[in-house]
């Protein structure tokens, strides 16, 4: 039926094709995939005798079979739990897992929406993404209402029709298409921070009255994350509008955790401002106050057309995707670089940071990566110093050893001299004694022969 998604045939006898989203392609009837193990560990860690993989397999296949027997109808959890033998807590978890991954209650009509890939990404990111509000996530159910399509946007700068996303400034009532925005093609005096990104689906131009804003705030205070209730409370506004308006409120940003990326934007800006300052790329991480609005950095006004293109693309693509892409690119580059230039880590990291900066559009965790590089470098230097010191120590030790040995040998020598001298003395003494004996004997003439003999004997 549809060419964009991977159809997966269930074991049903009829010839219908069951649609399964492409991110659930791993599913197979007879096997349990590792992401199932990850999401539902209770069945696989043998903590309880009844929660075995076999039981999980049985529940899962049962639920899917039940859904596929009538694919046009969404099955509810209660249907399932009434017919499955088992404890309702684990059944609910299996059901939720299958629901999130689109293996049940997945309707093919969802395929015809534009920007489908963003929806897919949103629902795979943990399943709880529905509760996170983000200005860049289009709500596909609302995007095709007729009155919204009628509001086509013309870019005030280049007078072309805006597609997919455009940038709107409340302050000056300007609309820029993505390309103009990135090129900075707006009147003097207007900075890029005054623009906010608007998807085609968010085209309602109705202003929020005071009353509505009050209602919104009240509702948010009461219901905090339940945007459905908030939307009900605020008369006449859809969920998405409420969320968008809430974000636009001056304090709304805090709830979205953008202060980090704002800070980083500044650092990144400072870095990029001097493309020739390759050397201080790492060291100078200037402090900046966190900005309140999401700032898209105007890279494009630098002379590099490639970067302009890349920033345009990332402006189109949105925050999360650009972030993911940048991270992947950075790690890949780092690996490649590592293998190529082992000797100049600094050079590498600088390069990768620059390139990552291009693709990231300032909204990534490059900050952390830089810090990691700096740390790594300092560690390397420390290690080198340690090694040097180690070698010094070793050579010192060895020299000392040699010296000691020499000293000992000298001592021995001395001793030997002394002993030899003593020996000489004794020899001389002996000789002297022999002579005296001889002379005494020679003084007695009778004993001449005897002394001669003895002398002869002695001499020999």
């Amino acid at each position, binding site marked *: 039926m549809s060419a964009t998604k991977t159809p997966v045939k269930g074991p049903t006898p009829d010839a219908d094709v069951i649609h399964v989203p492409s991110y659930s392609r791993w599913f197979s009837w007879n096997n349990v995939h590792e992401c199932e193990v990850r999401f539902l560990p209770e069945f696989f860690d043998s*903590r*309880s*005798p*009844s*929660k075995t993989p076999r039981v999980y397999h049985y529940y899962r296949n049962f639920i899917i079979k039940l859904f596929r027997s009538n694919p046009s109808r969404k099955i*509810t*959890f*209660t*249907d399932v*739990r*009434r*017919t*499955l*033998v*088992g*404890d*309702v*807590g*684990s059944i*609910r978890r299996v059901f939720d897992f299958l629901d999130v991954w689109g293996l049940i209650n997945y309707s093919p009509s969802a395929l015809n929406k534009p920007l489908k890939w963003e929806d897919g990404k949103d629902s795979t990111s943990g399943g709880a993404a529905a509760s996170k509000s983000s200005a860049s996530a289009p709500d596909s159910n609302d995007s095709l209402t007729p009155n919204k399509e009628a509001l086509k946007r013309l870019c005030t700068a280049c007078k072309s029709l805006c597609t997919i996303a455009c940038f709107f400034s409340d302050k000056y009532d300007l609309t820029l298409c993505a390309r103009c925005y990135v090129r900075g093609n707006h009147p003097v005096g207007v900075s890029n921070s005054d623009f906010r990104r608007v998807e085609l689906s968010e085209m309602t131009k109705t202003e929020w009255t005071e009353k509505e804003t009050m209602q919104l705030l009240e509702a948010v205070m009461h219901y905090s994350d339940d945007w459905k209730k908030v939307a009900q409370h605020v008369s006449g506004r859809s969920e998405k509008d409420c969320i968008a308006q809430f974000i636009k409120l001056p304090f709304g940003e805090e709830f979205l955790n953008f202060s980090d990326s704002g800070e980083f934007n500044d650092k990144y800006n400072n870095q990029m401002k001097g493309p020739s300052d390759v050397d201080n790329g790492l060291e100078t991480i200037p402090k900046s106050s966190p900005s309140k609005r999401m700032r898209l950095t105007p890279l494009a006004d630098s002379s590099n057309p490639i970067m302009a293109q890349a920033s345009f693309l990332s402006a189109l693509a949105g925050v999360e995707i650009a972030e993911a892409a940048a991270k992947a690119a950075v790690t890949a580059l780092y690996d490649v670089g590592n293998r190529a230039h082992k000797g100049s880590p600094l050079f590498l990291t600088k390069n990768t940071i620059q390139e990552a900066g291009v693709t990231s559009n300032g909204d990534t965790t490059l900050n952390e990566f830089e810090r990691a590089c700096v740390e790594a470098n300092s560690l390397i230097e420390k290690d080198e110093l340690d090694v040097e010191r180690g070698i010094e120590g070793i050579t010192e030790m060895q020299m000392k050893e040699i010296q000691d040995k020499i000293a000992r040998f000298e001592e021995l020598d001395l001793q030997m001299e002394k002993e030899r001298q003593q020996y000489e003395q004794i020899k001389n003494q002996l000789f002297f004694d022999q002579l005296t004996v001889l002379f005494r004997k020679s003084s007695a003439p009778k004993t001449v022969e005897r002394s001669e003999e003895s002398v002869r004997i002695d001499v020999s």
Partner: protein
Amino acid sequence: MKLPALSSSKAPVKFRIPTADNLVPIRLDIEFDGQRYKDAFTWNPCDPDSEVVIFAKRTVKDLKLPPPFITQIAQSIQSQLTEFRSYEGQDMYTGAKIVPIKLDLRVNHTLIRDRFLWDLNNFSSDPEDFARTFCKDLKIEDPEVGPAIAFAIREQLYEIAVESVASAKENRLSKKGRRGFEHVLASKAGGSTDVMKLFSFKSSVVRKRKERDVFEPTVDILSNDEVDALEAREEQNAR
């Protein structure tokens, strides 16, 4: 999951449902604003309490019940859970107990009647498995029957376990020491089927003829009228 402490029948065991999984049977019967919601299912007491609210919300959403049901359902589940938990930690004597379990339930159009013996001491028994096999063997088509059977078994086991806790407490208060154990055993044997008599030399393991009918499972499929009649009678009895 708690493991059985000793296989000896004399030692007390910490309270738990005597099956492989320590699941609590929960029965809901809430009436509000003219709408009656009856349900029965098994709950895992190890699940965090937040699960209760999630489950209640889910059920109300799925069955399109009015919102006040959520709190009532959650409360009911919670109170049954706390009751269960209050028994946990206390001792129970299971003894060499083989208990008769009786099934007499009606699920949609299927009427089930059965009676069988169940070993209370067997802590690795599995009512869910029994229910699955039962449905498969008797070719029951209605998928809601399985959980109902498992639930009925569990409920009865739960009641028996609670009784044994109560009697254990009584005995501990009234008598102490060795005498207490013997007394307990004697009383147990009287209440349930006497195992020794059944499996001794003189009698055979084969059941007597007249008892066979009682112990055979019967499954009846009712027609709509019969269902309505039965329901009306049940409600009358309830009042």
